């Protein structure tokens, strides 16, 4: 055990000492800080869109729209004075980036409900707000036309309904929007895919390095090949945990620092939109970690075998492709997994050990997986880890002392049988 520990330690220390480790460790938080600053910058004045409102009629809808938009934080509207060539001159202003766009309303607005918005960039947020405002203006005009008191209309329109979204799973209903669920599923599959792939490949290149630098013979004279492989896998795994820890902690710190950052940028902290992190229940976290660990062990063993059977980087890159594709299947099918989490396809993916490390946590987080299914999935994964590690260790054992051409499949089978 002391020897395996020495291998783990070396793997960890040497990897953390490299420039690349720190480049990627720092790049993560920098990216995250960038996102926060961008969000804040948007909420400060610069983010408001300046539009012109053109009224082609005489009923005064243009004025009403400008008034209604007066309270908006994200849109600043001005009435354009009517003239024969107003549309052309406004188009020029848009092109010159003096205004973001212009809205055209006419007298028929309250009868056929039609208006037009022209802009250089059609942002979803602006369109939604314009639509909401126009609806209210039309509603008010039509009610007034039928003799309803404008004060009554204002009173009626003052109330907005907020629809609270909650997701029910395994007997508990918690606040979470549809968007958040999707983001969560996406994050889970992306994180798992990246982590398993990156650190699996690390194990591979480390094995290859020892083979290429011919140090492996000395190591094998004092360690069993299996011990060496185990040390490598856990060493590279520890590095990935460390990296995640750096990212996680810095993200947490940055989120809590949003207030001061906003003040530094001259924004009102209370005005900043909340970054709603999806609520991560403890059980989801546990499933995520279990699948990460399982997937990592499974794929690292395969990558270690790939490294052992190759003689150089080029060969290894080719030989790793089948393994990478295997992992990619579940990553690419995550939309199917979130849209139809109970389909036969989704259920199959979460039982097959090579796809379950990603499919299972995505389905579990979506609430569409029972405890029974989870046990089967994790059990299969555990069995596969034992089996694959056994096979990989045998390939590893023979492969690390081999040089020359890459073995054929037939030779590999013989390695496994004779090792």
């Amino acid at each position, binding site marked *: 055990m002391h020897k395996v520990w020495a291998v783990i330690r070396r793997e960890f220390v040497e990897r953390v000492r490299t420039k690349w480790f720190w480049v990627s460790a720092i790049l993560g938080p920098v990216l995250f800080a960038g996102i926060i600053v961008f969000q804040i910058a948007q909420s400060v004045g610069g983010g408001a869109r300046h539009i012109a409102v053109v009224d082609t009629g005489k009923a005064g809808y243009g004025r009403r729209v400008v008034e209604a938009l007066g309270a908006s934080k994200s849109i600043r509207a001005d009435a354009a004075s009517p003239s024969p060539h107003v549309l052309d001159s406004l188009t020029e202003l848009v092109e010159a980036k003096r205004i973001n766009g212009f809205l055209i309303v006419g007298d028929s607005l309250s009868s056929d409900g039609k208006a037009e918005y022209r802009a250089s960039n059609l942002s979803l947020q602006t369109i939604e707000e314009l639509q909401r405002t126009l609806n209210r203006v039309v509603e008010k005009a039509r009610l007034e036309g039928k003799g309803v008191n404008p004060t009554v209309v204002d009173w009626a329109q003052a109330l907005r309904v907020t629809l609270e979204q909650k997701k029910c799973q395994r007997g508990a209903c918690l606040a979470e929007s549809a968007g958040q669920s999707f983001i969560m599923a996406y994050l889970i599959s992306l994180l798992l895919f990246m982590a398993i792939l990156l650190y699996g490949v690390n194990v591979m290149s480390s094995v290859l390095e020892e083979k290429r630098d011919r*140090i492996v013979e000395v190591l094998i004279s004092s360690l069993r090949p299996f011990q060496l492989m185990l040390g490598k896998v856990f060493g590279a795994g520890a590095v990935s945990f460390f990296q995640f820890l750096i990212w996680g902690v810095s993200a947490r710190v940055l989120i809590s620092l949003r207030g001061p950052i906003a003040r530094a940028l001259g924004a009102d902290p209370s005005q900043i939109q909340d970054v709603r992190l999806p609520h991560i229940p403890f059980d989801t976290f546990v499933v995520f970690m279990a699948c990460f660990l399982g997937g990592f062990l499974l794929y690292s063993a395969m990558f270690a075998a790939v490294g052992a059977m190759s003689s150089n980087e080029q060969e290894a890159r080719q030989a790793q492709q089948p393994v990478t594709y295997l992992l990619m299947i579940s990553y690419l099918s995550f939309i199917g997994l979130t849209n139809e989490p109970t389909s036969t396809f989704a259920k199959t993916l979460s039982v097959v050990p090579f796809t379950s490390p990603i499919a299972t946590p995505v389905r579990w987080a979506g609430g569409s997986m029972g405890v029974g299914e989870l046990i089967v999935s994790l059990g299969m994964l555990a069995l596969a880890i034992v089996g694959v590690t056994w096979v990989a260790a045998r390939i590893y054992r023979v492969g690390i002392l081999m040089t020359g051409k890459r073995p054929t499949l037939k030779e590999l089978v013989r390695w496994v049988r004779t090792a």
Partner: protein
Amino acid sequence: MSDPVVVDRVTKRFAGHTAVDTLSLSVPSGIIYGLLGPNGAGKTTTIRMIMDIYEPDEGVVRLFNDVAGGRTHSARIGYLPEERGLYPKMRVLDVLVFLAETKGVVRRAARARALEWLDRLGLADWRLRKVSDLSKGMQQKVQFISAMLHDPELVVLDEPFSALDPVNRQVLLDTVIDFRRRGKTVLFSTHIMEHAEQLCDRLCIIARGKKLIDGTLADIKRTRGGKHIVIAFDGSQGAAQQIFGDRRLVAKIHDFGQQAELELADGADAQEILRALVSSGARLSHFELASPSLHKIFVDLVGPDAATAAANPPTDRERERARA
């Protein structure tokens, strides 16, 4: 106490080729033992079986009177493989500490001993440099340290002195001799006879995987050598070539130009040759009745075998094919 290394009728086959053929040898404690043979004779394969890297197809290897294998006893054995290798991106000191740890030495002790050894072999200033910054010779010294660092009872050195300049070779030779002086055992392979002659207490010559001879250096010289004469000329050789060609006087000759090593024919007298040489007008600077050099014994024994065995060394792939 039994011998630290006993190889008992061991055979290892690789595809269509027997690398080691029912080889037996025994390395007594506290000596320097040489495993000699031409390229491709099976030296490295034998050593790898001793080190538990290959498993023999037949026969057993016993280390310290135990069949458990080299890995089990790795704390008591130091190993310098033929294929040298270190982590090029690691610092010298870190590599040494790590390798000692894999032999079971505690970190702190490993560090202290590594510093001591680096100092002893003149590498102290390089301890914090990357291995890749070192010259080939320095790297070999570092690797040599890694074999000795955990103070083993037995060191197995595969071609330890190849590719070293004379100064560094002497440093390592001295270290090996000192190691034996402390009662430890050395097993090393070489195809350079001068090293073997300087160092070995006992030796074993193999070719094509088979043992040709083993024993103490003195015994081998006694049994293999007939009567030998070493001659050196000082200018004129007179009719020496004619005399060397006389089969009644000379059985075998190794002619090096200004020097020659003769093996006397049965019944021939050395004095007769001396007389004949002098009267033929040859000027001699040296005339010595000697036991044969190891080089001569080796060439006589291995002779034609060496050429054919070295011409077709099996590749790893071929070896592997043979495993199945």
